[in-house]
């Protein structure tokens, strides 16, 4: 493409996919050294996973068992009883509402913007792109007070829409960067060929571009969902009893007195589950998305 191409190793990576494969095979280390490395990898995986396992184990114990640390104890489902009927349900529904609605808004705004920054770029598109990125570097806490004051003035305090708008603006720059990097993968030749064949813009968008970009779009949506689902600072400041989201509820579910660890672990596990499940399914796409497309 341009001269910068040669200085950009990530672009050439596609050609090396096969090499990487053969290399991985040839480097399938044999003998004792290989066994040690394999064992190390397994130990590391278990160490990193252990806190999550411990959380699940504690959530399956009675409060008195959870209060004395020991590896084995009687298993009980008591901490999960009634979880879905109580305040947890309201918090999870609020979180789902905030995360899904903001993600839909982000995608609706980001797809055209990414298109205007890749397929048919506007002039000065690098400035626009880095403007989006620069808003991500601004410490969010500096916007907390004005947004809090304005939502109060608009009567939006403890209203989930305040959070939806905040999450949309927080995730929009990430989505634009990611989607742009996915859109650049659509071969230029296909688009041109379709146009030569007389395809009009809607046809090109739905029949040529959409099929190539769909997995990237899904990854983008997933990452926006995760960030919105996990956000705490604005949720803490902008919501009260009605619009409380899962992280705020979780932070408030520690009892100041008495035993609460098993119950806390059960709630924590439940609110982590959606992201955990989705992230495991899409782990390949996650890296590329989270690195804003700089890594493939």
């Amino acid at each position, binding site marked *: 493409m341009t001269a910068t191409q040669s200085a950009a190793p990530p672009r050439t990576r596609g050609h090396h996919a096969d090499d990487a494969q053969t290399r991985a095979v040839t480097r399938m280390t044999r003998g004792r050294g290989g066994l040690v490395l394999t064992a190390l990898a397994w130990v590391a995986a278990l160490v990193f996973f252990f806190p999550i396992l411990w959380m699940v184990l504690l959530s399956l114990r009675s409060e008195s068992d959870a209060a004395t*640390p020991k590896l084995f104890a009687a298993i009980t489902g008591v901490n999960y009883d009634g979880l879905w009927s109580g305040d947890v349900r309201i918090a999870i529904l609020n979180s789902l509402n905030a995360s899904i609605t903001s993600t839909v808004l982000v995608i609706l705004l980001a797809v055209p913007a990414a298109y205007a920054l890749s397929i048919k770029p506007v002039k000065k598109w690098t400035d626009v792109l880095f403007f989006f990125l620069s808003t991500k570097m601004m410490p969010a806490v500096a916007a907390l007070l004005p947004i809090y004051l304005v939502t109060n003035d608009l009567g939006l305090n403890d209203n989930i829409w305040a959070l939806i708008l905040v999450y949309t603006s927080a995730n929009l720059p990430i989505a634009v960067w990611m989607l742009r990097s996915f859109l650049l993968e659509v071969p230029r030749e296909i688009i041109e060929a379709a146009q030569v064949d007389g395809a009009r813009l809607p046809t090109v968008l739905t029949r040529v571009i959409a099929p190539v970009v769909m997995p990237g779009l899904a990854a983008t949506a997933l990452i926006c969902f995760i960030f919105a689902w*996990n956000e705490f600072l604005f949720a803490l400041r902008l919501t009260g009893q009605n619009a409380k989201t899962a992280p705020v509820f979780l932070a408030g579910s520690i009892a100041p007195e008495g035993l609460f660890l098993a119950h806390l672990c059960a709630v924590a596990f439940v609110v982590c589950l959606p992201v955990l499940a989705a992230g495991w399914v899409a782990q390949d796409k996650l890296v590329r998305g*989270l690195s804003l497309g700089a890594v493939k």
Partner: protein
Amino acid sequence: MTALPATAVAGRAAPTRAPRGNGFRTRMARRAPLLPALLFTIVLTQLPFLYTVYISFLSWDRDHPELGKKWAGFDNFRAVFSDSGLRSAVLVTIQLTAMVVIVSVLMGLGLALLLDRKFLGRGLVRTLLIAPFLIMPMAAALLWKHAFYNAQFGLINGAINGVRGWFGEHSPTHWSMLSAHPLISVAIPLVWQWTPFMMLILLAGLQSQPGDVLEAARVDGASNWQIFRAITLPHLRQYIELSVLLGSIYILQAFDAIYTITRGISDTTNLPFAVFETQVDSGDYGLTSAEGVIIVFGTIVVATFALRVTSSLFKEGTR
């Protein structure tokens, strides 16, 4: 914030597909899809910041509405710069970010090297390693604070007591991780969550190494260490820069862990938490805004510098 960092790299950018045709309609048709997102971002990020700048010049105390909002000139900024608490918050922010980013990049690199080979159960190992990154930060902070650090029912003391039990020492220890090492207690959950992320980026870097070069080096008799030093590490450089950049963006803003684990006591207040405290606890809106403004300008300076250093990362984005 401004588009300042953009100009730092824009000079090197040369769009592949220079817009053809300079007619007004063509230009408008190109710009139209961009406008909603641009307007939305400006309204929701730039206007609040301008409001913050405005408030930072006011004397405005939430708890004393009878005093009203008066023009205060630079009083708030003077107060911020003479506040030793805020200076210590700057220090804590740097310490925490450096600690978490360095440790998680190094551990991430180690794990990526371990995973860059075929072995039994590699897929499962990767899946288990990614899991901490997918845990809600609030859940991670609470889990570490109560299930691990807690002096009575935490697992750390539980393990210490277990070992002491083997040596015939049965009185439980009252040692407390939280009071002994408050900042490290905040850092551990962050490292636990960010190491998998660093590993993923660095693993992508390792797997993109040109296989023929590695093969040639091996044929020429290079040792594993020589290959790592001379080929792998230089190749990984931009991936390491990227992971440091992204990690720093997020850890500089760390809030949940500090709010949950220490509430800022014993010198663990970082900048976001300090601004939050001034705002919510003391209610001095003028002061908290001045803090916010200073932090944003500090970030612009640091980010411009960081982007200059690491802009090669996004060169691909300028093709």
